[in-house]
């Protein structure tokens, strides 16, 4: 055989593969290009492509991270809907009443809403959805707690009975996604961990949806992408933007070079938010691409252990809070990033914009340090700061902290720790480091939930609280605030809680996190008009595609 043949074959293969596609293939057009072989481009469904960090769980009893929340917000309907002001609007529920004792909530469903298979959304579906979420216990189940009974006296009425009054109950229903009971039951495996309910349809719902939302899953390739299609029969179809995408593709990649290539070649409309500052700067330089920035319900904390020396002394903690250079930290982030005001993100309802906040003042820091019980023996207690090794950007903040503390004589050891080790270390008081640097996000747009997540004793053995406050008085005040049904009174209590926490200086409050996405100019998207609740910024009916 001719020895040159393999080379020749390879060369032919290469050239052939690089040649333009045959006309029957309709490739994705680049910017300003006409689709090859597509004689009537208007017949093509408009497509919106967005990259996300994977895996994606579209089961409403399982999904709860960013991509899952985004999918659920678009595949399913809820009784209420979060608005841009941090409040809740009526949605599938036409109205709701609460009993005088604050224990019974009655929701009246609007008629005419249908699931993607055309069947009507009934009150019994809401009951089934709650029971399913509660029994499985995953995803957002932890949010909707304290419900002792759910019933459907008729097809349009749902009654929730609570164990005790809760100001968070109604907002938490934004995470009760209503599933089609008949469809899920038809696709339930008899064998499963949930007794008579088998697997509760979990396996089927991994790659299908059973919702009534504005979009429906038409194709799901695990570890690769999910393709959603507009549901023309949506009860709220009038809310679709005139140029809302016919199809939306969730792509499971966040690799910087891949995202940059896709967006440059017109194969991606909206990037994920997980790109580095440098990657966003590079994306910003591409013609027709802009970086969209908006606030989130997430903040960056230095969680200070309040139980080990020297950070168990409030004066030491205050000294550190005065010595840290917040403006230098903010300058390391995307332009527009703001220092935290108080202990919760500014986007949350009940946030106090006037609460006392530390700023860099070395004189104040030294004065506080002089009062610290360990002032004369700081060398004995080097402060260990753990940053999460999977988030390399955190290191520069840790090094900044180390440099700032050196100015007042506090020795600091910077340690890179994998996330799973952080989770394990912070689960026990004896293994929790002096400081761990973590972004924390609120699941609901209320300051009270964030305060509970961060400082209530119930969260001490979790990564959400390295502080180990274990303060019964604070716990009682938090519980009292959360049990207050009247919003105005509840928010007033949140203000008191924020002032109390700032006085304790349990943490360093660095900055409120901004969310960035690279977006091409033929997409109409105004995230600031949407709720900051995770998943709702990308509410697809309101995003237009002009191509």
């Amino acid at each position, binding site marked *: 055989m001719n*020895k040159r043949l*393999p*080379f020749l*074959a*390879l060369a032919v293969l*290469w050239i052939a*593969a*690089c040649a333009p*596609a*045959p006309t*029957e*293939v*309709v*490739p*994705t057009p*680049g910017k300003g290009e006409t689709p090859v072989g597509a004689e009537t481009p208007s017949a*093509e469904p408009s*497509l919106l*492509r967005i990259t996300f960090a994977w*895996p994606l*769980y579209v089961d409403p009893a*399982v999904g*709860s*991270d960013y991509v899952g929340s985004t999918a659920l917000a678009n595949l399913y309907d809820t009784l209420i809907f979060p608005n841009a002001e941090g409040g809740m609007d009526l949605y599938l529920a036409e109205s709701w009443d609460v009993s005088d004792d604050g224990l019974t909530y009655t929701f009246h469903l609007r008629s005419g809403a249908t699931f993607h298979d055309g069947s009507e959304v009934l009150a019994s579906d809401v009951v089934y959805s709650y029971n399913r979420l509660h029994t*499985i*216990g*995953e995803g957002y*189940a*932890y949010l909707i707690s304290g419900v002792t009974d759910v019933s459907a006296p008729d097809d349009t009425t749902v009654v929730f009975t609570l164990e005790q009054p809760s100001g968070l109950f109604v907002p938490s229903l934004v995470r009760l996604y209503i599933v089609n009971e008949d469809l899920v039951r038809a696709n339930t495996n008899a064998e499963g*961990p949930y007794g008579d309910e088998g697997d509760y349809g*979990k*396996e089927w719902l*991994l790659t299908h949806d059973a919702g009534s939302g504005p979009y429906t899953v038409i194709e799901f*390739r*695990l*570890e*690769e*992408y999910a393709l959603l299609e507009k549901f023309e029969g949506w009860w709220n179809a009038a809310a679709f933007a005139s140029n809302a995408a016919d199809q939306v*593709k969730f*792509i*499971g*990649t966040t*690799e910087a*070079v*891949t995202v*940059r*290539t*896709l967006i*440059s*070649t017109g*194969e991606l409309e909206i990037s994920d938010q997980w790109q580095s500052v440098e990657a966003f700067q590079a994306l910003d330089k591409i013609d027709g691409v802009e970086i969209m920035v908006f606030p989130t319900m997430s903040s960056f904390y230095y969680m200070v252990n309040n139980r080990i020396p020297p950070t168990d002394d409030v004066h030491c903690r205050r000294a550190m809070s005065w010595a840290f250079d917040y403006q230098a930290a903010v300058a390391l982030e995307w332009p527009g990033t703001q220092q935290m005001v108080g202990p919760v993100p500014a986007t949350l309802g009940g946030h106090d914009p006037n609460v006392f906040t530390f700023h860099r003042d070395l004189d104040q820091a030294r004065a506080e340090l002089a009062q610290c019980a360990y002032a004369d023996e700081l060398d004995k207690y080097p402060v260990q700061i753990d940053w999460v090794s999977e988030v390399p950007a955190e290191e520069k903040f840790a090094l900044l902290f180390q440099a700032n503390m050196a100015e007042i004589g506090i020795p600091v050891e910077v340690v890179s720790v*994998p996330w*799973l*080790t952080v*989770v*394990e270390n912070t689960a026990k008081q004896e293994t929790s480091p002096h400081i761990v640097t973590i972004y924390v996000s609120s*699941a609901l747009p209320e300051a009270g939930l964030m305060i509970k997540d961060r400082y209530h004793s119930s969260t001490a053995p*979790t*990564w*959400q609280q390295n502080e180990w406050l274990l303060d019964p008085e604070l716990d009682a005040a938090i519980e009292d605030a959360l049990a207050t049904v009247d919003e105005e009174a509840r928010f007033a209590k949140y203000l008191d809680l924020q002032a109390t926490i700032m006085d304790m200086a349990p943490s360093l409050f660095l900055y409120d996190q901004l969310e960035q996405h690279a977006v091409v100019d033929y997409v109409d998207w105004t995230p600031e008009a949407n709720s900051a609740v995770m998943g709702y910024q990308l509410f697809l009916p309101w995003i237009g595609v002009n191509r």
Partner: protein
Amino acid sequence: MRLLAFLARRIYQSIFVLLGLSVLIFIIARILPGDPARTALGARAPQWVVERLREDMHLNDPVPVQYVYWLRGALGGDFGISLVTRRDVANDIIEFFPASFELVLLAGIISGVAGIGLGTLSARHKDTWVDNVVRILSYMGVVTPAFVFAIILLLIFGLALGWLPAIGRLSDGIPAPPTVTGLMTVDALLAGQLATFWDALKHLIMPAVALALGALSQEARITRATMADNLSKDYIATARSLGIPERIVMGRFLLKPSLIPTVSILGLDFAGSFSNAFLVELIFNWPGLSRYGMNAMLRKDLNAISAVILVLGVIFITVNIVVDLVVGGLDPRIRLRAARSE
């Protein structure tokens, strides 16, 4: 008969290798930090849900007991549920393996053909500029990780030139063929979907080349070194002195015995590509087994880790057996030695 005996002996030995491998990986996966149940369910899941999952997965039992549970399931083809995909691990492997296999197969073909070709070329032009150029390129190929090639190829052919698609196995709007083998190109041909075949092939090229370049360079160096060494041997001088045409000397007398170490390395590279491809699969958003396995490790997906490592072990053993057979075919002395040792 000898061949059958050889195969039976190797398969028998392999059982113990796989058993040892499974014990090792089972223990290593369990001493990694972090509670797999908590990792899977998230930090905010109630403790009773975490405990239920721990019970379901027998995580509260001693490790040897856990191993017995796992082994009993694995022998029946049940590797348990993946904590990441929430499906049977066996189903995941069936879904993700063909994508990796297709990728690694093309990479193996490219590296084998081009590596041996370049090595031969280099040996024939030993110590000339051709040899020097191939040597420099080979060194660069050997020291450069596959993911760097992946990024370079993506930037050139995906971004700058726009000739090849950047991610996935098919473009938007291209219908996927009915799954028969799981190999997109093969299934497309079987279904007669030429446009799909074309598109799938285009998606394969960049990741396959990125994966092939390192192995190709290594194989070129080894082929060149062995051929150059054999060139100075007496039997080649004898063949030439007998007037045998140079084409036959090079092809039959020189290349064939010189391929033995190359074939061994080719086999190892082929098997190794399954585990080394994860960054390439990540960059090209390729839904393959390597990426699945790496994600499993990052998320402490115990069942998936054990199953993927076991599959990789089977691949290594199978490829080694095939390599032994091929090497035996290339060199009768090896066959004879093997026969005598029996």
